[in-house]
């Protein structure tokens, strides 16, 4: 199963969920500059951004979840509601979890065609999964700055950098 090789992604997602869940509406609407996403927009972008790419791989559960997401007015429409953002973070994580538990390392070499700016690429599943993981990390880092600027305590996403995987204790 691929899930072993992506150990740590689940805990990073959990650190984002724990950071977002207790936020107030004003904390979610915080936008440090007009040209940048708000806290809520960034968190919902993490959740909803996962679906497009997983659907391109026809990952388990991705089509149904993408259909639900398509019914949203816009990603920004949930950006003020912590419970909605958490719901989509957890739902999209379930899709990732199911995928990583269903596929093996042999699936990483599979490809699909994707056209970008007039050029068609054979995109590997390995490239796609890493891209979305890195996308989570990139925007998770942004969230840490935005929440830190507001004085919100985020030990998991902040000082631990999302490193929530605790090694097993040594036997006495």
């Amino acid at each position: 199963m691929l899930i072993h090789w992506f150990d740590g992604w689940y805990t990073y997602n959990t650190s984002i969920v724990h950071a977002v869940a207790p936020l107030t509406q004003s904390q979610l609407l915080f936008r440090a500059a007009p040209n940048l996403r708000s806290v809520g927009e960034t968190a919902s972008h993490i959740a909803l951004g996962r679906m497009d790419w997983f659907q391109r791989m026809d990952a388990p559960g991705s089509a149904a979840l993408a259909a639900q997401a398509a019914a949203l007015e816009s990603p920004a429409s949930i950006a003020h509601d912590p419970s909605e953002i958490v719901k989509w973070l957890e739902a999209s994580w379930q899709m990732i979890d199911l995928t990583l538990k269903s596929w093996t390392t042999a699936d990483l070499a599979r490809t699909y065609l994707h056209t970008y700016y007039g050029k068609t690429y054979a995109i590997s599943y390995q490239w796609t999964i890493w891209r979305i993981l890195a996308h989570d990390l990139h925007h998770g880092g942004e969230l840490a700055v935005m929440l830190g600027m507001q004085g919100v305590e985020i030990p998991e996403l902040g000082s631990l950098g999302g490193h929530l995987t605790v090694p097993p204790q040594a036997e006495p």
Partner: protein
Amino acid sequence: MKETYTQALIAHFDSVFAGPNGDYPAILEALAGVSATQALWKPVPTQNSIWQIVEHLIASKEWQIEMLERGQAASPVWVDPAGDEAAWQATLVRLKDAHARLKLALEKIDEADLLQVPVPEWGSTLLELILSSGSAHEAHHGGQIDYLKGLQAGKKS
């Protein structure tokens, strides 16, 4: 097997460090055009500056090199740097040099060693340590560099 592990690791490291990655920038892309003044700026005193993050990335790369070459290393320590444009540019040179040396260390590693547990108390293989402390760690901080840069651009307009 050898090529699979090391090539995948180096590809991930280069992807996050140099890009391109589509709609989010790599470390060097985010740092392009950043001056010493911008690098030292903090949105609030309790937050890290770009320069601090870059020093942290250098220290993390040095940590990974030590782990690959000796199987042990002292934990990276956050520092609060100061300096002029020449010092900042020298820092960027050290960052690129550390990345190049890390790739060399990865190329030299015996793949069997990647599956060893270098520090029994941590319970993680060297491969797992490098995966979490390398490209994944860098992507997290890359987002912060990009955000701090964007924040300053927004304040100017």
